């Protein structure tokens, strides 16, 4: 069997991938909870919006890059030699998880893009300061978009962690 790209570095990359995903889950869920607070018109600490957005995107990129470096090794050593023969459902689930990860990246980037203006003037704080929303409809949609981006990122991260654990739990993988 010919060696594949970065095959000897596999265990180290798996550790980096797993640690990054732990950080990612924590940051993305916290970020989503902040967005839910905004939707419920509860005050949030503006600095947290940017902190969680930056942490989420940083961890997301770390997970994706380490995962991409691991992928050739997984494709040959784990999937082609074992999963495709013994547990095709796990191979399919893993591929679905990878595709979801790509779809989630724009959500994490979008959340960071929105975090800066939102932290400069969070909707709930603006309302408190002026005692009325300048344009309630537009503000509501802006918050809804932020909620979609953050909750979407968190859901994708959580489902990917579960899928990854299920695939790893397959005997011999």
């Amino acid at each position, binding site marked *: 069997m010919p060696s594949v790209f970065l095959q000897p570095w596999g265990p180290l990359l798996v550790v980096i991938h797993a640690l990054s995903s732990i950080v990612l889950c924590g940051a993305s869920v916290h970020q989503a909870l902040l967005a839910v607070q905004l939707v419920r018109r509860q005050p949030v600490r503006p600095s947290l919006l940017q902190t969680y957005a930056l942490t989420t995107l940083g961890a997301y990129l770390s997970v994706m890059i380490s995962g991409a470096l691991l992928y050739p090794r997984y494709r040959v050593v784990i999937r082609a030699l074992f999963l495709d023969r013994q547990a*095709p459902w796990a191979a399919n689930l893993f*591929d679905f998880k990878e595709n979801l990860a790509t779809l989630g990246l724009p959500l994490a980037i979008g959340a960071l893009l929105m975090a800066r203006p939102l932290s400069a003037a969070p909707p709930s704080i603006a309302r408190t300061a002026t005692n009325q929303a300048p344009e309630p409809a537009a503000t509501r*949609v*802006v918050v809804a978009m932020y909620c979609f981006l953050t909750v979407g990122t968190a859901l994708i991260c959580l489902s990917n962690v579960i899928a990854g654990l299920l695939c790893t739990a397959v005997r011999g993988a």
Partner: protein
Amino acid sequence: MADSRRSALLSGVFSTATSAAFFVSGVVGLPLPLYLPLSRRWIWGTAAPELSMDYFGRSLFALTVGAFATLVAWGLLHLFRRWTPTARVLRLGLAYAITALLLCASLFAYKLYGREPIPIELPGESGSDPGPMKSQ
């Protein structure tokens, strides 16, 4: 709130365009960069003569389309500085982003559910040459 509305619109465009491009790559047999992990090389096409991976090429294509669409939208917003996205435009952007994401995720769930992978032949296993392999 003008900045946050512009950011919301750009985020929606990025997500929608990426999901749409990813969806198209799953429906149409677009020639994409394929990585061949056994021979450690890249080729351009829809099928490869050996074990191949299309995930990198597909992701690169979708993210590039998404980034390009966002850049165009940003340029337009920069050009028409006086215009601020209205609630209706933002609502449309949000609806498109959610729909594109759900459609794309559903398509790949449908394609992968019940897919029967073609295992590579191990040394000592008999069999004829399967010919060009569809990238998985």
